[in-house]
């Protein structure tokens, strides 16, 4: 009797649209040969709300709350990209204090988003304790947002010309407390997760993204930096006051799930550093420039790029001089990362898809728009 490889029939497996590890409504059409993935076709659009079309029928200021609903884990980044583009077309000068407040809001958003990443990523890989830890720390940030903006998630606090309001009484003290608290907590995560043998076995060497492929697919953010490419828009094209702040662009040469995880962990520490600098340097003054209520920017176009927690979030706004934009294009980083997923999962098994997809930290709200 000869023992050889048994030819296997290809099987199509639908992962999602309702699947706890797809982080929203995503369907992956996987082609399997035995247990091994030979093809992957992501089916997206379940959350499509026609945001770009809606924008053409709203005034500039009216569209800001819509942007919150794109990447809902870091709504400030979305506000910022849209507002940056509009301010460029309309040549609006933002008061210095407002610029610092924006950075504080953006970086708190980044930490909150990365904490959700660590929590859900760990949970996907069956480390439930880390899930609870992540959400515990994030809750403090949510309280800070609520205190300042009245909202926890969809703040719409970055407005054309500045921010919605100045910091409330006691905010700075609480923010400092949070910054002091987070470092030791992240050290706990490291003990619990980063060196954990199971966690390492699931993530090290899994889902490789070579740097050239990452650039070719227009990947950005921690996904690209986890492949060793030091591309960070806060450095490459500084907006607001980032050029005055000291922080490291975190990269990792591993190109795998672990590399992307480590980049985000270190970025939280850098964000804490940025927030502390902003609180120390915060100048006095106005927080909102005088902007006409019915804004009619001159005809023209601008591209506002922001380093969101996921990567390059950009708004391409075209104006014809009217009160509504002629065209708003929303460039979402997760969309590009999802396009690279089929190549990253090929040759791995279903359990690894969970790890690889989790390591990209996608948000379907911005993919489907």
């Amino acid at each position, binding site marked *: 009797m000869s023992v050889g490889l048994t030819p296997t029939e290809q099987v199509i497996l639908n992962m999602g649209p309702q699947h706890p590890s797809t982080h929203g409504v995503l369907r992956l059409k996987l082609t399997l040969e035995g247990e091994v993935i030979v093809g992957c076709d992501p089916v997206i659009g379940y959350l499509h709300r026609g945001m770009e079309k809606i924008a053409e029928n709203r005034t500039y200021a009216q569209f800001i709350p819509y942007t919150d609903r794109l990447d809902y884990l870091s709504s400030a980044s979305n506000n910022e990209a849209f507002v940056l583009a509009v301010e460029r077309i309309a040549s609006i000068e933002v008061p210095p204090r407002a610029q610092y407040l924006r950075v504080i809001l953006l970086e708190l958003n980044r930490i909150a988003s990365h904490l959700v990443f660590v929590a859900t990523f760990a949970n996907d890989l069956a480390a439930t304790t880390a899930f609870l830890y992540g959400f515990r720390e994030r809750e403090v940030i949510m309280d800070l947002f609520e205190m300042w903006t009245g909202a926890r998630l969809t703040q719409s606090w970055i407005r054309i010309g500045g921010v919605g309001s100045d910091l409330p009484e006691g905010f700075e003290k609480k923010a400092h407390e949070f910054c002091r608290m987070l470092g030791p907590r992240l050290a706990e995560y490291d003990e619990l997760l980063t060196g954990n043998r199971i966690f390492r076995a699931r993530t090290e060497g899994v889902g490789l993204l070579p740097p050239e492929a990452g650039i070719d697919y227009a990947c950005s953010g921690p996904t690209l930096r986890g492949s060793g490419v030091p591309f960070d828009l806060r450095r490459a094209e500084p907006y607001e006051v980032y050029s005055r702040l000291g922080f490291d662009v975190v990269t990792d040469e591993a190109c795998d799930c672990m590399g992307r995880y480590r980049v985000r962990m270190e970025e939280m520490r850098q964000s804490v550093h940025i927030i502390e600098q902003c609180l120390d340097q915060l100048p006095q003054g106005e927080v909102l420039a005088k902007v006409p209520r019915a804004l009619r920017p001159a005809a023209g176009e601008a591209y506002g790029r922001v380093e969101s927690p996921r990567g390059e979030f950009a708004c391409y706004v075209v104006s014809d001089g009217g009160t509504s934009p002629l*065209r708003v294009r929303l460039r979402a980083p997760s969309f590009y990362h999802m396009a690279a997923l089929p190549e990253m999962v090929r040759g791995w098994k279903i359990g690894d898809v969970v790890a690889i997809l989790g390591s990209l930290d996608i948000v379907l709200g911005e993919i489907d728009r």
Partner: protein
Amino acid sequence: MIEHLKAHFGEDIESAEQVGREVRVRLRPAALVAVCRFCKERGYRYPADITAVDTGSEMRVVYRLVSLDNGEHAVISAGVPRSGASLPSITGVFRGADWPEREVYDLFGVRFVSHPDLRRILLTDDWQGFPLLKTGSVQDR
């Protein structure tokens, strides 16, 4: 960069101007793939975005290629008719062009010739019409 492009592609470059860190180039569709490859070879390796703009009177597809070395953007646009438009696909130059081209097809109806897998991406397969055209109302189904 503008001089290089004009020297290499001559008549195919309809207009070119430098605005801040953006090199805005308008070209004939026939030269699209060659110009994109030319840019990629000169460091514009990151295909940040592909989209279209319909102003109501004319339509153009806009490609934004970014250089990670000097931070310059090559913003390449090609005019297309508003119905039955087609352009050569640049998926042979940038793998990342696959999905954005599908999206432009899905929402504007531009067909990309030699795209490996041109299907709708955000809307359902049986959707009628292209919602981001100024002529297409949101009620189109």
